[in-house]
């Protein structure tokens, strides 16, 4: 069989067979057949995970044909989407109904089932990860049974299955709680790192979606602040990115020229509009507005590897300082920024934000650079602050580590014993991280 690779290109496998089922019945039949034959089966989405979570030597199911919008309840703002639907397809499906997903990450290529199974998230302290938007799931379990779960139907299963790592069943349908379509006003600007870190909790509280990138070897942070607005309700003058004004140059903010201009303008008030205009151009804050999904998503063309840890929100400043010290002490040259985001606490068993308000720190390394020293040293720091790794990104943890991090891991595994008694969904990753 031909080789399958993930997005980064570094996780590869040769499935014994590949199938593209078009119906839930087909999925069920394939799982039943594999279970009877004592084999393994694994559904894959877009291959955006950086770990080996999607690899299989058994049968690979590609869910691309199980895709699209199944039902819409406009009143309840509930939509049901087929499991193989990619995130980037969803906005167009929801648009005719004036609905949108409440929050999204910055990558929109994943399948909806892959995104929720690995705990994919965006940023914003008022919002949870994508899995928290799920109201019901339809799973094909390890025995081929088709099982629905929600807060009222099989609630024990629902409590664990939203971040299910692909261990409990193949998600063929997802019911999402949507919100009315909205616009985002984005402000991006470089700022001194220290000030950003110091005001982190204020900014998280004051803004809908705040995140920043810290550039190693500098004391600069690129902040991104997104504010939600009603359709057509964007502040005056805010336009879509295609007409965006100049980006960013904060050197002049702290520069004497800029303060000299301010002093000068105090004496000649009639010049203020002109000077402000010029200063805005020089300092170049990138500011734009658009429909929500266009602002959430960004293009990633450079291939990298990523590690991301979920930390108690209050630990973020300390962890960043320790990362900085570690990079300097080891003489590492890091050519990707460190990304800092946040999310509300949730009640999903294996969600990285389970039962705690969470700050996320993601680190990256170019796909051609060995990430081992950087990632291992950073993980030591994350671990010391009770960090939980993103399930789809690099980490070096094993099951015993996870049982300390997730009190409900045992519960998850007992549900798995029922749903997948023959372990048809197992692979090396699940063997490593689950009990």
């Amino acid at each position, binding site marked *: 069989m031909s080789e399958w690779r993930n997005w980064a290109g570094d996780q590869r496998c040769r499935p014994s067979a590949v199938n593209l089922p078009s119906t839930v019945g087909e999925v069920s039949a394939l799982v039943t057949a594999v279970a009877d034959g004592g084999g393994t089966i694994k559904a894959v989405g877009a291959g955006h995970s950086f770990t080996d979570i999607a690899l299989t030597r058994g049968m690979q199911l590609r869910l691309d044909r199980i895709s699209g919008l199944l039902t819409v309840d406009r009143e309840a703002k509930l939509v049901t989407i087929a499991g193989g639907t990619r995130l980037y397809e969803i906005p167009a499906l929801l648009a005719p109904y004036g609905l949108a997903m409440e929050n999204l990450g910055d990558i929109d290529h994943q399948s909806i089932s892959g995104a929720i199974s690995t705990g994919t998230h965006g940023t914003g302290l008022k919002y949870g990860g994508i899995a928290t938007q799920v109201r019901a799931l339809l799973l094909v379990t390890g025995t081929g049974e088709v099982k629905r779960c929600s807060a009222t139907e099989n609630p024990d299963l629902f409590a664990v299955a939203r971040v299910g790592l692909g261990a409990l069943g193949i998600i063929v349908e997802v019911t999402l709680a949507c919100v009315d379509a909205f616009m985002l006003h984005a402000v991006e600007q*470089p700022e001194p790192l220290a000030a950003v870190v110091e005001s982190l909790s204020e900014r998280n509280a004051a803004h809908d979606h705040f995140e920043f*990138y810290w*550039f*190693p*070897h*500098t*004391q*600069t942070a*690129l902040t991104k602040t997104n504010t939600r607005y009603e359709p057509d309700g964007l502040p005056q003058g805010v336009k879509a990115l*295609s*007409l*965006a*004004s*100049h*980006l*960013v*140059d*904060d*050197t*002049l903010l702290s520069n004497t020229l800029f303060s000299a201009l301010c002093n000068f303008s105090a004496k000649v008030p009639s010049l203020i509009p002109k000077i402000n205009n010029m200063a805005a*151009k*020089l300092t*170049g804050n*990138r500011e734009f507005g658009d429909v929500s999904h266009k602002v959430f998503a960004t293009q990633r063309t*450079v291939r990298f590897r990523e590690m991301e840890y979920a930390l108690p929100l209050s630990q973020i400043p300390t962890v960043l300082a320790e990362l900085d010290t570690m990079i300097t002490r080891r*003489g590492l*040259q*890091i*050519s*990707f*920024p460190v990304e800092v985001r946040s999310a509300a606490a949730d009640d999903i068993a294996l969600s990285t934000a389970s039962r705690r308000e969470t700050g996320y720190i993601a680190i990256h390394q*170019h796909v051609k650079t060995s990430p081992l020293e950087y990632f291992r040293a950073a993980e030591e720091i994350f671990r010391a602050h009770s960090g939980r790794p993103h399930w789809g990104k690099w980490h070096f943890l094993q099951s015993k580590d996870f049982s300390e991090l997730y009190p409900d891991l045992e519960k998850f595994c007992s549900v798995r014993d029922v749903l997948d008694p023959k372990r048809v969904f197992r692979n090396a990753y699940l063997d490593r991280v689950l009990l």
Partner: protein
Amino acid sequence: MLKLLDAAVARGLSGELAAVSGAQDAIWDEADSACAELSAPLAVLDVQALSTNAGSLLRRAAGKPIRVASKSIRSKEVLRAVLAQPGFAGVLGFTLPEALWLAADPSDAFTDIVVGYPTADPLALRALATDPVACARVTLMVDSSEQLDWMAATLASLSPASPIRLCLDLDASWRPTVAGRALGHIGVYRSPVRTGTDAIALALAINGYRHGNTALFRLTGIMAYEAQIAGLQDTPHSGNKVADLAKSQLLKQIQRQSMAEILHRRANVVAAVRNVCDLEFVNGGGTGSLELTTGDPSVTELAAGSGLFGPTLFDGYSRFTPAHAVGFAAPVVRRPAPDMVTVLGGGWIASGPAGNDRSPVAVHPAGLSLIATEGAGEVQTPLRGTAASTLALGDKVWFRHAKSGEVCEHVDALEILDGGQRVGRALTYRGEGKAFV
């Protein structure tokens, strides 16, 4: 000329330089006979010495490609011949009009020109922006948002054929500190960009300039030239041996520490900038520091030029000795005293801090020196020494110049010598009617 270069580059690569050095003074005798028919002033380029120097540079670069500094050559034909050698790639130009002229050369030999210095020439900038070929071939140097604003304003009324390629100049000078207090600035004053924070701010600013829907600029590279290492003799030869020895020890110490500092800082700044954009190249070093700079993993290519001609400035380097590839001749026109002659011209002075080390050195016939009170003059240069009596009016006195490039501003062409024979001539920029600075 190309072939001649090919044949001899291997010699430099294999490190057979000592043998060449010993026989170096013989070439002026040969040059004198080869150019007997020609009127002076004139300048010669010995192609075997040039090849040896080219090979030596490649060996010292240890595998990293060398971008050729055109200011040190100032002859299209010589540039073409050097660039045709594997291991040399790209031009480090000195002005935008020069870069446009090279980029438009019908030979297509100059497809990658980084202008090593910032540009403030509105006509040239507009010409660049509207020419798709030049846009693809020329990269401009920047180090401040003031320059970006100027360029954006200059280009406001037209739409560029493609984003203007930019290279960020990183200050590589050394500012040692003791207990947090700066002791001084060792190196040259070029760019205000020193830290990762400076560089990121500029890189982000570059990304933000737009013309309609398209980016106005694209950051493609970083350059960091360690002038205090590449351009400074570490074994000076002033004549006072004790002072020279002490100065040499101090200079070597400074260069060691400065190199360690820039290795660390450059790597960090490059990593920082790679946070926000993909870089095609990171240029470092110069003729004087190739073997040191090539060891910096963050550097992808080196720059060199003056080492090809081997002027007197390199006589005081401990790490390498280039062959004497270029010299010039001035005719004897007067005899003010029995032990003196005066030649026409001769004041082909190198730029930089005015001093004896910027003057040309009379090398043939041996035993002539400049007069301290007159030096090398604008139109005539008196020389004193025992050899004066052997010279007749019209005879040529041969000089070596101090610094590579400027010699070509005095002649229309370099007479090409090969094994003592005159085999042709290569036009200089001046010979093609071009004066860029």
